[in-house]
């Protein structure tokens, strides 16, 4: 089938671009490394500047992998949420996962938890917020417009978490804890280590796999719950799978990266312009575009000035005009 071939080619192109970009990103940074040096490091050459190996293996590689994982994860979660809510203006924040994660992290910092504690509490905070939003939405909606009541309870949860976050900041020591909370909320890939990735990658995979498996059914949900049901889909099951998976993915990456906005909103759009709305290709492709996007932005973040710019700020600065441009260009046909 022609369609299948086209899909494979798009995915292949995405992989190639991402791989090349990863290689390129190894060179970018304040410590100069040449192509020859890279060869030496890879072949474990003995007479090599030991700093170079450290910079490559312990700093640049984890960072590049982080950008790939975090960017891809946020993008695929955003795509799934947009499909579920049948709205291209939806981002992974919609059910309160990011604000819950932010609150969890801030509390952990307030109580001087170690790094692992911050990650755990933020992960738990994100998932708890979503589960609460779903529970409230269910009890309020009582089978009427489930999606609408979910959106509303997500808003309630987000704003509640926001208020509690402000309270936490207000109580935090302004000399060390408040800045720590503020920096966490700005998002950064610089503190993600290989050990963190070893935990985050499997959890993300646990969320990504069901989304990929259900991607045809997700297409059908775009015509509304009742029609999807009449077409033979167990919509309650599908909704639960999508919400759980997308939230798991988001919570797990946000717990190590902090809040990086815009990726989950912008990248699904951008990808849809390339692939069209069919989740059979859109969903996997959005992971690749998310990785590429965040890697590019992170390369900017760490090379544009001598002081690193927090990546969450940069995604917003780049994302906002980009988004406007897409909106104008595509008009109604997202």
């Amino acid at each position, binding site marked *: 089938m022609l369609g299948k071939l086209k899909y494979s080619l798009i995915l292949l192109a995405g992989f190639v671009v991402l791989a090349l970009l990863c290689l390129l990103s190894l060179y970018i940074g304040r410590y100069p490394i040449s192509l020859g040096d890279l060869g030496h490091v890879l072949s474990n050459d003995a007479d090599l500047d030991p700093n170079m190996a450290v910079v490559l293996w312990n700093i640049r590689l984890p960072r590049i992998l982080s950008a790939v994982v975090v960017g891809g994860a946020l993008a695929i979660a955003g795509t799934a949420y947009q499909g579920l809510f049948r709205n291209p203006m939806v981002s992974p924040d919609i059910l309160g996962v990011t604000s819950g994660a932010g609150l969890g992290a801030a509390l952990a910092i307030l109580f001087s938890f170690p790094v692992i504690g911050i990650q755990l509490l933020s992960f738990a905070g994100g998932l708890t917020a979503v589960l609460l939003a779903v529970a409230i939405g269910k009890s309020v909606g009582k089978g009427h417009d489930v999606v609408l009541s979910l959106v509303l309870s997500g808003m309630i949860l987000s704003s509640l978490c926001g208020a509690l976050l402000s309270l936490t900041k207000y109580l935090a020591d302004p000399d060390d804890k408040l800045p720590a909370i503020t920096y966490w909320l700005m998002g950064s890939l610089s503190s993600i280590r290989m050990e963190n990735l070893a935990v985050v990658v499997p959890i993300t995979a646990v969320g990504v796999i069901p989304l990929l498996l259900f991607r045809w059914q997700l*297409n059908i949900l775009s*015509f509304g719950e009742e*029609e999807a049901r*009449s*077409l*033979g889909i167990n919509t309650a099951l599908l909704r639960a799978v999508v919400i759980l998976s997308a939230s798991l993915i988001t919570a797990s990456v946000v717990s190590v990266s902090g809040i990086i906005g815009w990726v989950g909103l912008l990248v699904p759009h951008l990808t849809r312009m390339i692939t069209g709305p069919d989740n059979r290709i859109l969903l996997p492709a959005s992971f690749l575009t998310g990785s590429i996007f965040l890697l590019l932005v992170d390369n900017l973040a760490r090379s544009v000035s001598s002081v690193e710019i927090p990546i969450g700020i940069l995604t917003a600065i780049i994302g906002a005009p980009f988004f406007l441009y897409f909106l104008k260009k595509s008009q109604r*046909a997202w």
Partner: protein
Amino acid sequence: MVNTVSVEVEFRHADLGYRHRTVLKDLSLHIDSDSVTCLLGPNGVGKTTLFRSILGALSPLKGEILLNGKPIAHHRPQDVAKLIAYVPQAHQAAFPFKVLDVVMFGRTAHLNRFQMPGRNDRMVAEMNLDFLDIRHLAERSYTELSGGERQMVLIARALSQEASFLVLDEPTSNLDYGNQCRVLQKIKALREQNIGILMATHSPDHAFMIGTHVIVLKGGHIHKMGPPEQVLTCEVLKRTYGVNVHLLDVPEGHLPSRKICAPSLY
């Protein structure tokens, strides 16, 4: 497209509606795939409620609705979808799916949970596009189509479900005159393929044109039920819609003449 599985829907003293509002009371009714049933009644009388109940989206408040002898709720959505296909009113979609993909959505009931549609599903979809004379729309975006075209696509989607019973919610509303007639022609053609039809409509003429049965709903009950020529009299139409209607006979070539409605404006 030969359908042999017969479908019977039976309402037994069913109350239909929502938690705080019963829309249709004590409904007893038998519909099967051997008939074309037109559902008539004033706005808000509960036609959509009846449809949602048949599709299992709404459970009866009292009594029961049986699909082939078993309560609807005991069927999996996938199994219901293989028996009954639903054609909603033409609507706008959130994402610009290609028409061929939209029609292939109808194949979902025949796929396993994680399965993607394949060559055979594509062939079924294309065949139905051909049947409805809209093959030329296959590569267009659903969102760019006119109301009439979208309605045809939704019918093609329902046909791709290969169910033997079709439920259509006012398929001709929002269509221009030509498209209305074309939709009715196609529905009549489906009848010849042994597909049962339940269709809500605002026009009693439709019942005369294609209906073997007609159900008139009024005030939360079935007001009248039976063959259109017997049920739809001037008095019934007057009581249902509150207007005076003349019924005229139109010759249809060598076929028996057909009745049409001419509302009186005085």
